């Protein structure tokens, strides 16, 4: 689908809609910056993991979780700028075909958090076309909020990795994640049932 016909949505609204749909302790990996700030603001869940660096690794981290726990659905939320840093991972995921991985790309065409500079892809590249070309056949632009929710439902019912991209506005995240990496990791492991608290 061509992005020009898609509605410009809002990251926090979309993230909140996604979280409201999760009823089975699905894991959610929030990419660096605004992406995980809005995940935090949508309400902390023990199955949320917040990245405080390593830009571009939301999909690889989510892939690792998905390979470790094939019976749990794993979502990854990533910005367009972050995805551009690690496009090769789309092919890695297409090759491995994890049945339980759902990738969501929030595309505003800018590095909002650093001063809203346009990305090199802005107005030039189509991230869904890149995903399709990387072998992720179940990739689509969401036309609007209802279409996004429909695509999420569809992604949760198929046995293949899915990628959903959305155009979003230039608003910053509405919250700020508590920057405590050890606690974030430990609580995530509790949330995934890997460990019990002390």
């Amino acid at each position, binding site marked *: 689908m061509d992005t020009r016909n898609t509605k410009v949505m809002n990251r926090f609204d979309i993230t909140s809609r996604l979280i409201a749909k999760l009823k089975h302790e699905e894991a959610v990996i929030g990419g660096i910056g605004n992406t995980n700030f809005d995940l935090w603001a949508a309400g902390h869940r023990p199955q949320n993991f917040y990245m405080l*660096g390593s830009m571009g690794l939301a999909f690889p981290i*989510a892939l690792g979780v998905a390979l470790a726990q094939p019976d749990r659905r794993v979502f990854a939320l990533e910005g367009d700028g972050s995805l551009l840093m690690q496009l090769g991972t789309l092919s890695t995921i297409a090759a491995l075909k994890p049945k339980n991985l759902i990738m969501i790309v929030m595309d505003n065409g800018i590095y909002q958090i650093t001063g809203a500079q346009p990305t090199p892809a802005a107005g030039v590249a189509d991230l869904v076309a890149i995903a399709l070309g990387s072998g992720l056949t179940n990739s689509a632009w969401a036309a609007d909020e209802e279409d996004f929710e429909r695509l999420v439902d569809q992604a949760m019912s198929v046995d293949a990795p899915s990628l959903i991209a959305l155009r979003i506005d230039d608003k910053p995240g509405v919250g700020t994640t508590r920057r405590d990496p050890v606690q974030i990791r430990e609580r995530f492991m509790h949330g995934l049932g890997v460990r019990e608290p002390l």
Partner: protein
Amino acid sequence: MAGAEQHSSMQASGDKSWHGIVLQTLKRNEISLIPYVPDRVLTPLIKNLHADPFFTTFATAREEEAVGIVSGAWMGGRRGAVLMQTSGFATLANTLASLAVPYQIPLIMFVSERGTLGEFNYGQSLVCRTMRPVLDSLALEHHTITRLDELEFIADRSIKQAVTTQAPVALILNPLLTGGKVFDK
């Protein structure tokens, strides 16, 4: 060359080769997820890992990606290790400093050492010099393995230490152990 001949005879003896010992040590420590960026010296290890159904072995486009994957897997309860070459390690400083170290992830790295003991590519010899300063600047545990008779002890103990102390470790496979890569064409 005596080193190269010794290397060949070790390969011929199956499990007592350096790569046989690495594979068995990984298995004994229940490390089953092996993303890698390939390297000529690592080829027999990669081939045997692919052939063994205990392991999920696959190539990634970048070393950072592989680190992200094993970090996620660890948090999900599955152990992994990353295989790479010296030049690949050089791409990892940001990922080590912003993911593996602060989140206390027992990232296990096997690095095939290029750039020393007969290197023929100037760039490889330069990038090799950045590896230990990066490891030391983050106070990361690392060992350079040169002897076959020390390999199992160092690898096994280092993996166990990484897991129990929740800290990354780099195991550098020196040409004295593996034979390295020499100029042949």
